[in-house]
């Protein structure tokens, strides 16, 4: 059985069109190294629907990129190891699929954009070849036909003189143009799910906005589910529908984008928002969150954020808070989520002072 088109093909293979596009259910991912077991993802949950943009926000080492790689099935195993949970695409668990079936999903149904397009594109192959490869491998197009498609895609993502540049190599493009080529490659076969891992981090600020706009346009046009992985709250605000804040391999808080900016329900999110530079707070020091994320080989027993949390109590150090609702469509993993949400709680130092 070969699937050349979807969704007709996807139905045949036991996909459920009524199920959510992508569900991550209690996912655990570890790295088994000589230094010990590093728990990169520890019971992650989220759902993505068609046409929706979910931003996954977190610091380096929070497990967001590992999550993306696990969904794509490009995690290096070993040392990576899926220790539990499920990822369901249209109701079907990706981990139960034979490798060949998963391969046919990659780039076709689920696609990914990487942070550094210069290293993510093959330096010795023309960009046109790398885009056309999608059509040749997954659609069985002939060389010429695939090349025409590649030119069309390059035009679509806004590369000037695409026909002339189709034979150029990645190093001959600017950073922004390279990222557009990366995007062209990822959307070539109209995927349902697009994962963008820090798509604009390596770019200049002005180019960042252009690339984000392009992504948003393409998403709306194709009704894709977009997972936007970033550390930058600023990038997220304009584009995302939902935000999930990750810390030490867990979702700390998830909510609608406006809700989370207006009323964060977790001290970590609150800290991130306060560390953003603000135009109306000129001259004030930025409030960086003190301390560092925990080592993944040695995550503290209670709330993983407790060592850095200005509100933490004895309870936080011993009991791990569950991800529970604070409001409609707004969940937080904090013992004091209600108080944070309503703004009643004061940091310890201030309270003591």
């Amino acid at each position, binding site marked *: 059985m070969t699937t050349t088109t979807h969704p007709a093909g996807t139905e045949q293979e036991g996909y459920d069109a009524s199920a959510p596009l992508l569900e991550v259910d209690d996912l655990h991912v570890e*790295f088994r190294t000589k230094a010990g077991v590093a728990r*990169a993802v520890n019971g992650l949950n989220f759902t993505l629907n068609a046409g929706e943009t979910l931003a996954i926000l977190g*610091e380096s*080492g929070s497990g967001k*990129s*590992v999550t993306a790689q696990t969904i794509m099935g490009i995690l290096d195993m070993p040392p990576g190891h899926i220790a539990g949970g499920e990822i369901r695409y249209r109701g079907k668990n990706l981990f139960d699929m034979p490798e060949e079936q998963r391969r046919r999903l990659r780039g076709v149904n689920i696609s990914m954009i990487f942070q550094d397009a210069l290293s993510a594109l093959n330096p010795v192959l023309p960009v046109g070849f790398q885009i056309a490869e999608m059509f040749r491998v997954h659609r069985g197009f002939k060389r010429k036909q695939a090349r025409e498609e590649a030119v069309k895609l390059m035009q679509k993502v806004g590369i000037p003189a695409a026909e002339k540049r189709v034979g150029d190599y990645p190093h001959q493009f600017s950073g922004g143009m390279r990222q557009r080529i990366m995007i062209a490659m990822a959307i070539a076969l109209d995927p349902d799910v697009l994962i963008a891992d820090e798509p604009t981090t390596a770019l200049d600020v002005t180019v960042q906005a252009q690339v984000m706009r392009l992504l948003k346009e393409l998403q709306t046009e194709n009704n894709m589910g977009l997972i936007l992985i970033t550390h930058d709250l600023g990038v997220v605000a304009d584009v995302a529908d939902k935000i999930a804040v990750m810390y030490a391999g867990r979702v700390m808080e998830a909510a609608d984008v406006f809700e989370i900016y207006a009323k964060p329900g977790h001290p970590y999110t609150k800290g991130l928002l306060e*560390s953003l530079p603000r135009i109306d707070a000129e001259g004030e020091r*930025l409030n960086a969150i003190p301390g*560092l994320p925990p080592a993944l080989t040695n995550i503290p027993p209670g709330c993983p954020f407790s060592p850095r949390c200005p509100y933490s109590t004895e309870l936080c150090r011993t009991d791990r808070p569950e991800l529970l609702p604070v409001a409609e469509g707004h969940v937080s993993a904090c013992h004091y989520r209600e108080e944070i949400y309503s703004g009643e709680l004061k940091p310890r130092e201030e309270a003591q002072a």
Partner: protein
Amino acid sequence: MTETNRPDIQTAPQEPEASGPEASQAEASLWADAWRSLRTNPWFIISAVLLLILITMALFPQLFTNENPRECYLSRSRLEPSAEHWFGTDIQGCDYYARVIYGARNSVAIGVVVSIGVFIISLVLGLLAGYFRGWIDAVISRITDLIFALPFILGALVFLNVIESRGVTEVAGVLIVFMWPTMTRLMRGSVLSVVNVEYVTAARALGAGHLTIMRRHILPNSLGPVMAYTAILTGIVIGAEATLTYLGVGLQLPAISWGLQLSDAQRYITQLPHLTVFPLIAVGLTVFAFMSLGDAIRDAIDPKSKKR
């Protein structure tokens, strides 16, 4: 954006970074690390044991055999290996085991002399070329280019053929002429890699003289790869000597040498293969021991090369 918020693409767990001790301590621990990794490398153990036996053989061949390799009787010519003559006897009726044992001395002598000679030349020329650059570098580089353009065996063949009487000194001299460029380039490369490091610039700014900078900073930090290559070179030299002697332009009779034995044996290779086999094993093991010792040292000094 604040510093704590700045992530990178690193997703795999990070190993704790080595704390930065002072330079001398780091150096000491570098060599200690190298020694630790050497001790656990089986290739190092094998080659070290082989070399120990070989060097004893070169220095005190009497420990290995009571036979005199020059006492030959035609009455016992062309004997197959037996309990009495472990490696048999050759055409002249010499005990072949004794001749192979005594052959070690010339091979090891040429190997060591050439390596030391090349090491000194390369150290000086590589240091000068890498440190001063400019015309010194240009001249040295042109000369190395020139010698590289002459295939080594060919050059040595033509050179040695001109010399009528060839002993260890002559053969070693010609080998040095053709062997120094590779190591000089290596030395120049490692000098170049440390010459612009900040602490050297700092030392220069503080008014340290060229000699002091070279001795205190450049030399200790660029010696590693050259030392590993010296061991490898010894192996190459011993192989080259045997080859040249086999081709008839190396050592000459009455010297006892593996190359001469191979050269004599080739005419009888179908009837008396043991005459080829034993000196061959000796040459093979010797070259192998030096080269894998060098390899092991290189891996220990530069862990990056290990994946190669």
